[in-house]
Structures are given as structure tokens and as C-alpha cells.
């Protein structure tokens, strides 16, 4: 039985070396408290998706530990995965299924009884404005609709930890705001969120705590203000630019340059 003070996600010295020798993760440690809205930021190839894949069973760590609400993600993977809902970066819908089948099968994979699946499917279709598309094959959906369905699928089995891997990449502003309102709402209801995004203003606005990952290691973590202070800059965006070694792109520099 997990302890009462368990973390939603606890990663200790996580390592991932691919068979081709690439070290994607080199001793990553993070701890996310239940109810947190946690941001994981870093440039492309920093290790964000690999970390998420290790936590959800899509990649096999070569070292370290992952616990989800106290359950070891490797030895007790069943309980760990039930606690996680994953909305991946790529659109990975099954083109043979309809919208409602996508949710129904997902619920089935997570052991939900038929009546519960039916009720939850209707609820999520309504929430994500997909009711009219329920009988359509996923292949016929627009990009925005597919994105909604992926989020609905991640939430289908009522996970306690929702992992959003760049969920707003390529979506229009209306859908982006809609998604964030919903995610903030479920976070307020107690669902822990782990978010990766390239939109720093989103992370700044939404996340209580943020970790910077670069080169497979955690470079810094804390509140947005802590990160700014750590890099001796004014805000999260400048802290990020400092992390990736591109301080010259800071808006203050550019604006200053133009004024001068």
C-alpha cells in the first residue's frame, strides 16, 4: 500500500541509453507532489519525451527509479499506469476506430466496466465538443478534433496524473485556450499535471513548479521566479534563453537594441 505522503511522480537518477549509444537521460531526478501543475521545459532532444515514455512504459529505463503514487513503474506497472493518463505529442489515433470506439477501447484497456465506459465516453464527448463526431472514424477528423480526442482519451480512465506532451503544438488559439481552461479545472479538482511545452508563457501562467531539462539532465527546477533568480534574469523566458545559451534573443535586449 502506498504511503500517505507519496509523490504523484517521483523519479530518482533516471537513466536511458538507447542501443545506438545515445544517452537521452543522465541521472534525472524530479518529484511532483499530488495536485501540482508541473512544467518540464527544454529544447528539442533534451529528453522530455524520453522521460515521459519511461514513466508510461513506452521506453525502458536503463537505470534509476520511477514511482507513480508510490507504485514502481517497472515492478508494479499495472497500478502505476492506471494512475497515469498520457496525451502524447504525436497524433497516434487508430484509424480503424470511430471517435467513441477510441474512448471505449481505451477504457477497456484500463479495465473499466461497460456501463462506466459508456457514461464516461458520453461525458467526455460532450466536454470536448465531439458528440456529433462520435460515429466518425478518427481518420476523418480535423487536426484540432484529433487533438481534443487525444486529450479525452488520456482522461477516459480518470487518471490521477495527467501527462501532456506538447498538447497545444499546432492548434489554434481558441482550442488552446479551451484546453487550458479544462486542464486548469481538473487540476483544481485534484488531478496532478505534468506538462511539456515550447510555449513559455503557457508554462509561466499555468505551472506552479517548473524544471529545465537539457542534455538529459535537470539543469534547474523551482517556481518561475526561482528560475529567473537562478539565472539572474527578469522572467522565465529569459531564464530559458540563458539555459539554451541564447541570451542575445531576450526581448529586453532586442527592445533595448531597437530603442538605442
Amino acid at each position, binding site marked *: 500500500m502506498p504511503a500517505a505522503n507519496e509523490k504523484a511522480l517521483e523519479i530518482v537518477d533516471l537513466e536511458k541509453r*538507447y542501443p545506438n549509444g545515445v544517452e537521452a537521460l543522465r541521472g534525472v531526478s524530479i518529484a511532483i507532489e499530488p495536485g501540482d501543475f508541473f512544467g518540464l521545459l527544454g529544447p528539442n532532444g533534451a529528453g522530455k519525451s*524520453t522521460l515521459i*515514455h519511461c514513466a*508510461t*512504459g*513506452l*521506453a*525502458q529505463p536503463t537505470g534509476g527509479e520511477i514511482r507513480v503514487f508510490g507504485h514502481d513503474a517497472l515492478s508494479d*506497472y*499495472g*497500478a502505476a*499506469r*492506471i494512475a*497515469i493518463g*498520457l496525451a*502524447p505529442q*504525436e*497524433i*497516434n*489515433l*487508430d*484509424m*480503424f*476506430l470511430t471517435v467513441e*470506439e477510441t474512448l471505449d*477501447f*481505451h*477504457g*477497456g*484497456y*484500463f*479495465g*473499466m*466496466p*461497460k456501463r462506466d465506459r459508456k457514461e464516461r465516453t458520453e461525458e467526455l464527448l460532450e466536454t470536448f465538443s465531439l458528440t456529433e463526431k462520435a460515429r466518425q472514424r478518427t481518420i476523418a477528423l480535423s487536426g484540432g478534433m484529433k487533438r481534443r480526442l487525444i486529450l479525452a*482519451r488520456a482522461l477516459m480512465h480518470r487518471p490521477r496524473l495527467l501527462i501532456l506532451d506538447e498538447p497545444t503544438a499546432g492548434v489554434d488559439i481558441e482550442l488552446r485556450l479551451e484546453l487550458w481552461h479544462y486542464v486548469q479545472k481538473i487540476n483544481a479538482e485534484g488531478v496532478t499535471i505534468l506538462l511539456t511545452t515550447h510555449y513559455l508563457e503557457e508554462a509561466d501562467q499555468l505551472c506552479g513548479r517548473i524544471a529545465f531539462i537539457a542534455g538529459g539532465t535537470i539543469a534547474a527546477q523551482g517556481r518561475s521566479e526561482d528560475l529567473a533568480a537562478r539565472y539572474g534574469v527578469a522572467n522565465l523566458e529569459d531564464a530559458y534563453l540563458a539555459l539554451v545559451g541564447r541570451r542575445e534573443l531576450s526581448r529586453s535586449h532586442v527592445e533595448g537594441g531597437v530603442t538605442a
Partner: protein
Amino acid sequence: MSPGQIRFFSLLRREISRFMKIKKQTLGGPLLETFLYITVFGGALGSRIKELHGIEYILFVIPGLIMMSLATNAFTNNSSSILQQKFLGAIHDQLSSPASPRELLLALNLGGFVRGLIVAALTFIVSVVLTNLGVAHVLVLIPALFLVGFFFANLGVLIGVRAEQFDDVAFAQTFVLQPLIFLGGVFYSASLLPQPFETLTRFNPVFYMISLVRYGFVGFSEVNIPVALAALTAATAALFLFNLRLFQRGYKLRS
């Protein structure tokens, strides 16, 4: 039902739902193909050959065609299903679920087996209507069909997991599976072949599968039935355990 049972039946339903949605291709096509074989070999060759080992030629051929339907459909279903899911990334939804490697593998196997069985059953029904086909040894036929179906379902899983492009699946089917089946004695008796082809046929594992199924339907066999059943059981179990090991390791499924 327990959560584990719900999980397993959901995985299986997904497999069955996939081929049922494209049944013209997955059921209709193979059925037409088998019907054409029966027509051509029964009508054209049958009128000249008449009998093999005292059995009407068409009745000699049909058990092999039923076995071929079962084998190729079980194989094709699983190799295609896995590769399509890998290609789309949709398999991640199942891999990140609490389903164990054993549950995933069994559901995939059973999905392919069900498709193979449907086509084989339809072929049998058509054959019964068109010919005098009966069942001579049901206690051999049922385990033989069960084992053949699961062997090729497992082989389909193996090829689907290993495949990185659709060409890999097509290669296995065209250059390995079809020659083994056609040279395994579907349309002829191995004992009628000249040496060394008769002996070479006995190195083809499909020859024993066809012989088992033929014995079940028409009572004629060129192999030792208990030995062939035992060998097929061992081969199916070994292939299943090999696949299970691959699934546990996440070979070409998890990075």
C-alpha cells in the same frame, strides 16, 4: 468480469473489430481465392487426375486449402495489425495500459486465429455444399486446426513485431509462407514426387500440418499422426514463448 478480463476482451475486440471493418478485404478476398482454387483444381485438374490414394482429387485438395486459409489469414491479420499499429503509433495506447505482455500477445494471437477460423469455416461450408467433404477424425481435426491457427497467428506476430516497413511483411508472406504452403503438398501427394523432392518435402513443417488436417477430413495421411501432433504442439508452444519473451523485453515495441 474482473478488470483483467475486461482488459483482455477489449484487446481482443479491437483486433476482431479491425478486420470486420474491412471484411471485403479480410474475409471476402480470401474466400473468393479459395473458391477459385476449388473450381480450378476440382474442375480442371480433377477431371484428369480423378483420384489420389483412392480419394477423389478435389476431396484430397480441399483439406489443404482449408489449412491454407486458416494459416495465411491468421498470419496476415497479425503481421498487418501490428505493423499498422506501430506505423500509426496507435499501439502506444495499448503498451501504456496496464495490460501485461502475456495479455497483449494472447489477444493478438486470438484475433488472428478468429479471422483464420472464420475464413476456414466458410471454406468448409462452401466445400460441403459443392462436394462430398466430410469429417473422418474429428478428434485429430480439432486439435490440428487449433494448433495450425495458433502457430501461424504467432508467426504473424513475430513478423509484425520485427517488420519496419510493409515490404518486410509482404516479403515474408510471398517468399517464405506461400512457397512453404504450396510445396507442402496442398495440391499433391508427397509420395508421388521423384527423389530428392519427396525427401525434401518431409523437411517442410507445413507438410505435416497439411497431412494432419487432411487426415482429420478424409482419413488419409502420409505422416505419423501422434508424432506430427506432438511436434506441432511443441513448435507452437516454442513460438509462443519466444514471442512472449520479445513482448516482455519490448523488442521493437518499446524504445
